[in-house]
């Protein structure tokens, strides 16, 4: 067990921190589930944090000079390298604290990026930072495509989904590949803490982010982030869709603590994936065969996860 977790009593709906390190008034789309998730991440971390942001929606909507939505120190360098920038910040603070140039008080280092910045273009940089063991938290806000550039497919785009570079047509049904399992790649780095989270379960999300920060060494939290603009869904349904993703087993919630899988929310009476697809334009074109395939694969993936959890 992780000793740092012992003192942490956990957030509850009644004792949520009042701090808002990420201010309102930013330029996100209406109903953006990503910025909502990011707000929860920041509330969990509080003021003693340095944020290293990858290029992407969250970077552009929060920092159009001379405005900023950030009440905590924040840096953006480029798209693929937030984890390396965080490595630099962490290393600098380590030596500066050792030399007595800054207070010894712990400051969390957060690197944050979208699914493209994390699972595609930035995978090497994250892998390097994880392998080197820097004490930082990497949060992936996964909206399942390159939304900032206009909804192009990424490795995290789900099977069958329509994007501008995986369009359904006479010879295509949308995304032809299954969603890349980025959390599993992080687990393979033998880091102490990996988790998945959803803004529909915000207390769970905040607790996971806090645990990721408490743990010594690298930690990774993969957060489901609905994008009404990219998914063709109604803005007011972002939380509902997030909940359905969990209830249909499409996006299971779990933790991997020192390599041990723990299911956060076991789905005993799953809803069919069609419930989840409803009201998302990106899945509208799917025929019965594809839906049946997705249902089988979702069930199988969930079974795999259960087996991992049973192994303890």
């Amino acid at each position, binding site marked *: 067990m992780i000793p740092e977790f012992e003192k942490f009593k956990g957030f509850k709906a009644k004792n949520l921190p009042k701090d808002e390190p990420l201010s309102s008034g930013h330029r996100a789309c209406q109903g953006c589930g990503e910025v909502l998730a990011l707000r929860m991440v920041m509330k969990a971390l509080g003021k003693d944090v340095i944020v290293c942001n990858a290029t992407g929606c969250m970077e552009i909507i929060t920092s159009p*000079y001379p405005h900023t939505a950030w009440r905590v*120190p924040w*840096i953006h360098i*480029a798209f693929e390298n937030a984890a390396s920038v965080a*490595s*630099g910040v*962490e*290393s600098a603070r380590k030596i500066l604290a050792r030399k007595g140039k800054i207070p010894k008080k712990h400051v969390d280092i957060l690197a944050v990026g979208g699914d493209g910045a994390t699972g595609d273009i930035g995978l090497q940089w994250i892998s*390097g930072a994880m392998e080197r063991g820097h004490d930082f938290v990497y949060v992936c806000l996964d909206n399942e495509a390159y939304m900032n550039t206009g909804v192009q497919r990424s490795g995290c785009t789900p099977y069958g989904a329509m994007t501008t570079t995986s369009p359904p047509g006479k010879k295509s049904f949308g995304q032809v590949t299954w969603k890349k399992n980025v959390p599993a790649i992080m687990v393979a780095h033998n880091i102490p803490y990996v988790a998945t989270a959803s803004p529909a379960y915000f207390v769970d999300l905040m607790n996971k982010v806090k645990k990721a920060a408490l743990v010594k060494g690298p930690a990774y939290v993969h957060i489901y982030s609905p994008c009404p603009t990219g998914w063709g869904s109604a803005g007011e349904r972002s939380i509902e869709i997030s909940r359905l993703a969990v209830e249909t087993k499409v996006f299971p919630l779990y933790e991997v603590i020192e390599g041990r899988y723990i299911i956060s929310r076991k789905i005993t009476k799953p809803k069919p994936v069609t419930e989840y697809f409803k009201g998302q334009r990106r899945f509208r074109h799917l025929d019965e065969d594809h839906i049946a395939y997705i249902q089988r694969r979702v069930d199988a993936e969930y079974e795999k996860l259960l087996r991992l959890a049973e192994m303890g």
Partner: protein
Amino acid sequence: MSKRVGIEVSIAIAEAVGLARAEVIPAYPITPQTHIVEHLSEMVANGELDAEFVPVESEHAAMSCCCGSSAAGARTFTSSSAQGLSLMSEILYIPSTMRLPMVMVVANRAMSAPISIWNDHQDIMIQRDIGWIQTFAENGQEAVDLTLHAFRVAEDRNVSLPMIVNIDGFTLSHVIEPIELPDQEDVDKYLPPFKPRYKLDPRRPITMGPVGIPEVYTEAKVAHDKAMKKAKRYILKAWNEFEEIFGRKYNPVESYRTEDAEVLLVTMGSISETAMTAVDVMREAGQKVGLLRIRLWRPFPGQEFRKAVGKTKVLAVIDRCLPPGALCGPVGAELRSLFYKIPGAPKIFSFVAGLGGRDVTVERFQEIVDKARQFAKKRPRELYEVIGVREK
């Protein structure tokens, strides 16, 4: 007391970085830079240098890590070459406009293809416009001194820019030379602790690296350009202070036997040593030939260069870089631009030599001078000539 030792130049540079008390050193190995970072890693491992050596997984990550480190307020150093420097390229433009001081020693090497680990200046010339201050060292002593100077200049609050010291791969990085390693006390006097005006600190939150909309982007770039131009004053000041403490004098442009010269060779980096020998040989034979060596490449010291040329009528400029399809090499182009429509300007002839480790010998310099004299009489058909190309 400083000590004079026989030492490999790469090791001496690492010692200088240690004397500068560098705090974060993200690095990725590439020939011929390796000995510098290996020795730094060793110094950290032995407790001789209290620093964080970050063994990153690529040069791109090295430069990204440097950005984070400098922004968090630590004295930051890295080193690279050729393919590695190019891999960093996307990031190199960022710390300069963001005004994040750091020092990088580039062990200059040819670019692929064909793959070559040997020396020329193609790697750094690709990075000419990244907005870093750049100097070129001629010998080991200068490599050490320019490294210390780079920290002093980069971190000066009036400058706040990243800085590259170029050293020729192998011909400089891997040779053993007698080098005077300065005293720690003197270096501490020359180089006060890094105190950036802005840094990532939860006690004083700031936003670094925001979006530059069209209304502000031009201004951001103009501010960077102004900072580069203004930096020259502080570069010279730091060299003057260097002389006061360490007794060695450095100028943006060095002149060698330029008095009454009819032809001036123009070089950068370590081939200047052979060029000086060539000048001696030619002077011995009664030829009025001299040498100008550019030490400060960015910001370009135009005023100093014009003054150094004096009344000489012919310049033979040597580039260690061949940009295919261009009008001439980058140094040649820079100087043609400098003298464009200036009354009494010298005739400038551009030569490309020493690519991918090809030696530039005394005889080659004689050939260059002979050609420049011919061209001065009869305009050449081409705007530049590549020296020493094998016919078969």
